[in-house]
């Protein structure tokens, strides 16, 4: 093979995947999508699990009450076993929402499983030029991490359509406040979250971009083009339905891949833990499991933060710079 041919065959390889992997966050000009005004359109799409239109109705009503218009995507109500439609259908719906300039924010119908099956086929070209808010959590962590890592565009980690109470009059204040925090994020209010004092917290202060999400998803993205980068950041984690030993093993994955080494802070959200089977008691609780991984570091650690698969699950501006202050009297997180 002559040199010219050699070069022409190797260049495309070198430009696409390799440069992609080596891109660091500092190379991005971080983008915050435009905040929403009255009359703006919020799209609803389901890249993961199935949900009915009826189940989305409380969210639709509430967001209309906030002054927004709603565009219901084709996947709402669609069902292909556990999924909200076949991969092609979910991909197409999300792609359309991303590309439609009249849609200013996209809320996921629910989590479940399925985003990772389509993420590599989503074309983010238009979205990168005209970013909009992507809203959701749990399986939507795939979207948050992928977008943050590859495009540096801020997103909103929050409850989705399936978490809006049918009757707000009967809902708990923490749930109502959690839902309202989505609106606050969307219209550009400065966010401030307060967390009661916890003797297990490690005191301190840190400033960094807020990243993280569902721990199982973070582990699942390791090694891929959606890999979470945590250096210089405040990391938050939450999970649901996992055994303590699994949480332990996932945190070992983070530790052994150096994702816990250079944090500015660690925010431990809500973990709805699957109880140990009889005779298989793990013998360490969540606090011990976390602290044994981070004891050698010095950044602040805040436990029991209201984010996760619970009613009190505040909207967080993902990828946006935050300041975490963990003090004797409690912890405060606010966008910086």
């Amino acid at each position, binding site marked *: 093979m002559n040199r010219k041919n050699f070069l022409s065959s190797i260049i495309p390889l070198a430009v696409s995947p390799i440069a992609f992997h080596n891109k660091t966050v500092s190379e991005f000009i971080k983008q915050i999508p435009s905040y929403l005004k009255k009359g703006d359109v919020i799209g609803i799409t389901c890249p993961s*699990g*199935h949900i009915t239109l009826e189940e989305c109705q409380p969210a639709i009503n509430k967001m209309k009450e906030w002054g927004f218009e709603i565009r219901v995507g084709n996947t709402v109500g669609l069902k*292909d*076993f*556990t*999924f909200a439609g076949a991969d092609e259908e979910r991909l197409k719906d999300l792609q359309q929402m991303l590309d439609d300039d009249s849609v200013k924010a996209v809320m996921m119908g629910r989590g479940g*499983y399925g985003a*990772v*099956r389509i993420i*590599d086929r989503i074309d983010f070209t238009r979205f990168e030029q005209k970013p909009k808010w992507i809203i959701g959590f749990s399986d939507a962590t795939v979207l948050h991490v992928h977008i943050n890592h590859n495009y540096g565009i801020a997103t909103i980690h929050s409850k989705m359509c399936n978490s809006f109470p049918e009757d707000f009059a009967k809902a708990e204040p923490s749930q109502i406040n959690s839902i309202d925090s989505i609106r606050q994020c969307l219209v550009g209010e400065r966010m401030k979250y307060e967390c009661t004092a916890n003797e297990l917290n490690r005191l301190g202060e840190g400033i960094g971009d807020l990243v993280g999400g569902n721990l199982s998803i973070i*582990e*699942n*993205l*390791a*090694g*891929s*083009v*959606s*890999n979470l980068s945590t250096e210089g950041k405040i990391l938050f984690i939450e999970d649901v339905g996992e055994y303590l*030993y699994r949480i*332990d*093993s*996932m945190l*070992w*994955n983070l530790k*052994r*891949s150096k*994702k816990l080494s250079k944090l500015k802070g660690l925010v431990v959200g809500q973990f709805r833990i699957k109880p*140990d089977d009889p005779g*298989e*008691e*793990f*013998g*360490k609780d969540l606090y011990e499991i976390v602290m044994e991984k981070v004891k050698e570091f010095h950044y602040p650690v805040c436990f029991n933060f209201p984010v996760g698969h619970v009613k009190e699950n505040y909207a967080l501006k993902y990828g946006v710079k935050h300041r975490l202050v963990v003090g004797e009297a409690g912890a405060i997180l606010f966008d910086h």
Partner: protein
Amino acid sequence: MTIIPPYLKPGDKIGLVCPAGYMPVEKYQTCIETLYDWGFQVVVGKTPGHQFNYFSGTDKERLDDLQQMMDDPKIKAVLCARGGYGSGRIIDQLDFKKFIKHPKWIIGFSDITVLHSHLFSNYKIASLHAPMAAAFNDDEFKNQYVESLRDALTGKKANYKTETNELNQTGKAKGILVGGNLSLLANITGTPSDINTKNKILFIEDVGEYIYNVDRMMYQLKRSGRLDHLKALIVGSFSEMKDTAIPFGQTAEEAIKALVKEYGYPVCFGFPVGHKKENYTLKVGVKYQLNVSDTFVELKEL
């Protein structure tokens, strides 16, 4: 080149340890007796029969026991009595200095996948993905799968023949064999124990997982490039699979098939490796030839 630890001779000592979950004394007696019947001696470490909550000892105790067995020149192979969970908690504290100079066979599977992958990725030392102590119980110590461990330890080359499966992708391939438990392979991604699958024959198995999670882990392998450049894929047993309230709509095998059908390399399903009785000994890091034909599947050690 892969470093092959010395094969065992009659009278050689095998160390028995538990680097992960607790194992009661009565559960590994038949294993010990069988190893003696095979002509070996057995040195039982401090962790078998020992318990600290879920584990067979504290991290320190499990680490020290495994370290001692690895370093003791009189021990010629180390059999992990069971898996469970816990090897990943101690692996980074193991000191491989002596072991590299005097490699020996590390035996086990499931959680022990961490050790297999770590040894081969970092030191190019072969190890045995093989039945552990419980597989010897209930009169099963005479079956061909347990016997395959004896053959592997004494240097007899394997030639496994097995039935065909309608999901198979036919073809022939030669390559170094790597792999193990899918959950563990996913869990070590990005860590110093990570698996390198390029130009390898990859084998995977799992137990007790949700089908959607098998699918998700397969996507992780795929998205991290671990399926792109295989010589072949061996899918072992995916036993005791669980499904969600709304069904996934595919078996674990069908989900795997959907993800690898685009590749041209041979793929075989239902290979006898995994958390069932049908669990042949495989040498991680050793070259094999796989022949997936229309009528049979053959995995031959080269």
